[in-house]
């Protein structure tokens, strides 16, 4: 049942121009930044060759590319998540799900997985660019995998946040603003940590950035994985509760 809902969600995304235009725009910008990184790498390559323990192709091309991808997708995901539930509230199609023999958990997970399907496609397209370098060079595949894992977790977490905010309001624009607000706040919260030492650890731990940066640099720590999984689970559970309580207080 979850997969039927997810399948319908993904299908609807690709039946509207939305998914295609987002994929096209993201791919264009990422390809541009990828080529710029390659160009940069080629100019510094002769000097790097002489250095001991110099950063390689992965550090100079793949890691910055993933950083750019994270930034772009953080901007795009709220546009996708708002349609998950907000728009269904507004068009009235949510009544179909509510009167069908499916639980709120199935609805939330179905919609979540449907959107992750689209993000998976985006990630594959992003990953294909550094992987194409294998044709002529060598990459640190472990580091690449860690970066990709970090990007996947980051986007999954942002999607979960967006899904939750989308359950709060039948107004897609409000849901978008809410999601941007929450995500940017979590993105920037660690800047407060830099100012004074006290209490900064909590802020640093809460921040989306610090965990992603460690993963992107190739450091896979179970505490970082746990952070993302906790974040995802929290917001999905909140979304389920919100849908349940909405029947009592729309």
């Amino acid at each position, binding site marked *: *049942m979850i997969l*039927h*809902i997810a399948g*319908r969600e993904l*299908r*609807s995304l690709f*039946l*509207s121009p939305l998914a295609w235009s987002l994929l096209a725009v993201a791919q264009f910008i990422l390809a541009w930044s990828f080529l710029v990184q390659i160009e940069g790498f080629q100019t510094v390559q002769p000097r790097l060759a002489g250095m001991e323990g110099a950063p390689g192709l992965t550090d100079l091309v793949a890691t910055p590319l993933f950083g750019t991808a994270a930034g772009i997708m953080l901007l795009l995901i709220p546009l996708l998540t708002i349609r998950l539930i907000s728009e269904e509230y507004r*068009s*009235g*199609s*949510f*009544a*179909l*799900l*509510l*009167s*069908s*023999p*499916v*639980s709120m958990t199935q609805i939330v997970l179905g919609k979540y997985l449907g959107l992750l399907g689209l993000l998976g496609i985006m990630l594959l397209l992003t990953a294909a660019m550094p992987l194409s370098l294998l044709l002529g060079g060598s990459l640190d595949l472990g580091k690449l995998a860690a970066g990709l894992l970090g990007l996947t977790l980051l986007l999954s977490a942002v999607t979960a946040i967006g899904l939750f905010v989308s359950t709060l309001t039948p107004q897609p624009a409000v849901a978008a603003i809410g999601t941007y607000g929450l995500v940017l706040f979590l993105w920037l919260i660690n800047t407060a940590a830099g100012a004074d030492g006290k209490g900064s650890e909590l802020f640093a731990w809460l921040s989306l950035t610090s965990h992603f940066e460690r993963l992107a640099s190739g450091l896979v720590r179970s505490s970082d994985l746990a952070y993302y999984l906790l974040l995802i689970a929290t917001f999905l559970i909140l979304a389920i509760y919100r849908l349940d309580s909405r*029947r*009592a207080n*729309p």
Partner: protein
Amino acid sequence: MEPLIKTENLYRYYGDRCAVEDLSFELQRGEILGLLGPNGAGKSTTLGMLAGNLAPSGGRIQLNGVDLLKHPLKAKAGLGYLPENPPLYRELSVDEYLHYCARLKALPRIQINEAVHRAKERCGLLEVARRLIGNLSKGYQQRVGIAQAIIHNPAVIILDEPTVGLDPIQIREIRELIRELRKEHGVILSTHILPEVQSICSRVLILHQGRIAYAEQLGDAKQQATESLIIRLDDPPPEEQLEALAGVNKVERLELGGFRLQVTNEARTISALAKQLATSGWGLQEFTPKRRSLEQIFMQITSGEAA
């Protein structure tokens, strides 16, 4: 037999405002129950609660013997619901949409194609099956909404204003469909079109300010009281003479030799009156018993209580 819908003391509040108050009724298999009421009487709220879209503030709902609040998934499996706005995905084609609905309603995979075909046939959607729902006219969208509600052959069908936005031919087709559905299912529908209730419903509930103000079996002439007679005479006598007839309480003169007689409500007085009038030599042209119409009842209830 177990009733298909059974509600007990249903309440629903929006904030402080009570939209539905102490509502208890039953729906049997083979019945079409019409919910009537002015705007804001609580019709849609009631149907929304029956369909599991709104949580009641208090009370119990049983669908086909299953408690909707305790076992929602099991109860919803036998439920078809068409809300006020049909719950459509505009970017899907009719076929895709109905296949998705069939899956959502947990139909076994092998039955899906047949169920989709039958629903399209019943709702007259065969020729638009491949078109996008968003491009269909309002009437067709409404039919897709009805198809969605009956696709899994549910025991209970809940239709919120099913004929709104349809042209007269479509309305007739949909009414025909609803009458046909009655054979195997129980149907509850809301409307504010009085003739619609009279033409298809077997029972009517009039809601007013969230309460049941009136309940009646329809289509049973004996139960409906004759309240007045319209007669027309070629050679009318003075009104006093008419008033003197047995069983006549009040006489009102209409144009062209017509009279409206308020009569005592008994079958014998009517036949006795007919005999007297026919043999009186006043030249009886017309003799029409008038029953209290649903419209009069409706107006009486909704205006009477508000005043």
